[in-house]
């Protein structure tokens, strides 16, 4: 009877475990014998469909390899805990993944795919190259982009003086109309790094970010002054305030509107839908001492766990397919600006069709890459979540008070940098 009890327990265990299990383990070959390459990315927005066009196109063209694509909101988490061959990593995260040993040198894959460094814009290659080796294939750069409403703006502002002038004109027309909106959270990393680049401030200090620089404090005070002194932006705009204000319609005492938005290119679809032909796009104006653009990038990287030569051959085939103007143009169609030179040529030739990709490609020459430090996102977190918000919401903020916050942010960044694997 004792054995019967154990048998019952065993059956119950099997039933429960069977119910709990997710399914079969991943196979490297499909039913029709194709070698499968797992590919994860975070393209869950409108751009997902355009990447899918590329992977579907590759799969249709192949009888040997198959890309199994997963588009996941938390794709970094899934990548860390899962088993994927290919991954899309943001340019500012590449160093972290390299130091964590999660991606591999892809120099040999460039050769296999018949690609050279000179096939890409230098801005993209600067991001892909770490410690003298190539750790990714640069797909695009998505810099801070300027949208403007042609109803209020005849010519895109090129300097801060243009913005001041525009604001005066708009305010004279309607007190609820502003030149632009400065958000308190959201895309503020782009704002801070853009103003640092335009003032020649280098935040990288060894393996950590050093925010506690008087020149950086001066540069940051520009945004404070935009809100409280020059009043080119309304005060108290919250998350994504720069875009939300651009999309609003001024309503006396209730809603404010801006004529210009310095924002992410991913908002293009929504802006185009609202403004149609009235939507203007241009490179960002020079607010600091010199022209410079800042933004992030998408890099195609290969997992450190990929050792199988057949899988590597398949990845090289996919890369070769992707970095062909006829295929990568799909990505430009989705509003992204590819850094592959032949695709840029195609975008330039059809600049009306690929309006946003073309305008952003104009910013590549002055693009300043994110500092390559371990856990960049965490090192800048305090700045993103606390300091910038304080900067644009505190009317009486002084440079000294700001410096104190910058020192706190630097201390935290250094503590994060200390967690770098030795």
């Amino acid at each position, binding site marked *: 009877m004792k054995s019967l009890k154990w048998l*019952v327990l065993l059956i119950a265990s099997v039933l429960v475990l069977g119910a709990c299990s997710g399914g079969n383990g991943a196979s490297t070959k499909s039913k029709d014998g194709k070698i499968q390459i797992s590919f994860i990315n975070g393209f869950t927005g409108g751009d997902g469909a355009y990447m899918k066009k590329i992977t579907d196109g590759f799969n249709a063209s192949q009888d040997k390899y198959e890309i199994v694509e997963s588009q996941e909101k938390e794709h970094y988490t899934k990548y860390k805990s899962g088993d994927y061959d290919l991954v899309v990593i943001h340019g500012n995260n590449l160093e972290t993944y390299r130091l964590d040993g999660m991606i591999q040198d892809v120099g040999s894959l460039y050769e296999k795919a018949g690609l050279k460094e000179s096939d890409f814009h230098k801005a993209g290659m600067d991001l892909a190259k770490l410690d003298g080796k190539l750790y990714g294939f640069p797909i695009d750069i998505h810099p801070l982009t300027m949208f403007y409403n042609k109803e209020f703006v005849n010519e895109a502002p090129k300097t801060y003086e243009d913005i001041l002038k525009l604001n005066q004109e708009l305010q004279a027309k309607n007190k609820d109309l502003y030149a632009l909106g400065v958000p308190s959270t959201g895309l503020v990393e782009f704002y801070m790094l853009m103003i640092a680049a335009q003032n020649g401030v280098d935040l990288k200090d060894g393996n950590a970010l050093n925010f506690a620089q008087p020149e950086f404090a001066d540069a940051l005070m520009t945004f404070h002054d935009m809100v409280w002194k020059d009043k080119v932006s309304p005060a108290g705009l919250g998350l994504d305030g720069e875009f939300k204000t651009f999309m609003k319609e001024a309503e006396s005492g209730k809603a404010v509107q801006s004529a210009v938005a310095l924002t992410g290119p991913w908002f293009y679809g929504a802006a185009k839908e609202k403004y149609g032909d009235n939507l203007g796009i241009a490179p960002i104006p020079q607010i600091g001492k010199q022209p410079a653009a800042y933004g992030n990038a998408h890099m195609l990287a290969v997992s450190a766990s990929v050792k199988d030569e057949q899988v590597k051959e398949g990845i090289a085939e996919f890369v070769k397919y992707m970095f062909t103007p006829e295929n990568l143009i799909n990505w430009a169609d989705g509003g992204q600006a590819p850094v592959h030179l032949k695709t840029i040529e195609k975008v330039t030739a059809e600049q009306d069709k690929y309006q946003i990709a073309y305008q952003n490609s104009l910013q590549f020459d002055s693009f300043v890459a994110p500092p390559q430090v371990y856990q960049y996102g965490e090192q800048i977190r305090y700045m993103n979540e606390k300091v910038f918000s304080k900067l644009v919401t505190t009317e009486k903020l002084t440079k000294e008070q700001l410096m104190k916050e910058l020192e706190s942010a630097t201390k935290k960044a250094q503590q994060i940098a200390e*967690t770098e694997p030795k």
Partner: protein
Amino acid sequence: MHKGTSTKTWAILMVSPFILCFILFWLAPMFLGVWVSLHNWNLSSGNNGFIGLQNYIDILTPGSLYNEAFMLALKNTLVFVVISVPPLVIIALGLALILDHLPAKLKPVFRTIYFVSYSISVTAVSAIFLWLFNENGGFINNLLVSMGILGKPINWLSEQPYAWVSVLIATVWWTIGFNMMLFINALDEVDPSLYEASDLDGANGFKKFIYITLPQIKHVAFFIIIMTVIASFNLYGQSRLITAGGPEQSTTTLTMSIQNAVFGMNQLGVGSSMAILMGIIMLLVTAAQYFMSYRKKEVN
């Protein structure tokens, strides 16, 4: 035909799925969490060895990165617990009392109306309240300005104390139905003869509530308070999606901080230690509540 052994076998068969699930989904993860918290465990590079209580020491050492994050989040979470538990209990009780006095035909209708919000996902709830509390031309601001109650719009989501007020209103609207249902069930259990007797004694509504209703539902009320405290400690979705932890990290909660330690900083060991510490704090708060209630009962 009754066979003792057969009954025992069936009993084991019936109970074993629960026991296995209990072990798999509660006991094992808990012990695994404790074990991970004693290791230098990085999400990317894996287990880098046993370090004893070092993660706990790091979290509790003033000035350290993890201490600042944990203490800030703990302070924010306690603020939310303090401001959210009274309305979540009192409003739920108020609604339950009102529903209890409605005609029998209307009761299920209103019960459903108030409970339906509880079935909505936090993402949808947050989207609704983001729209309502939008600083620039949002519904609430427009309404209050149009009615002359406000001279100028309020920055509901990017200024304190309004950010907490927004999260609180969203939480009350979303979860109040659950507490209300528990109170309704408790009120249904009160013996009607007690009210009849008090009517004969000439007791008014307030006295009936104080001397009959409250004592009769106090055990359920105590359970609701404990469950609400625990739920408030676990605040995550609303503050993540409505205020994104801001302004200036003032609505960043413990759960958000733990999530960041694990998935942002990759420090699985530190994150597990934070989670264990959070569990201990919740346990202490709940035990204090229980102790105070128990002692009061003894004195009475």
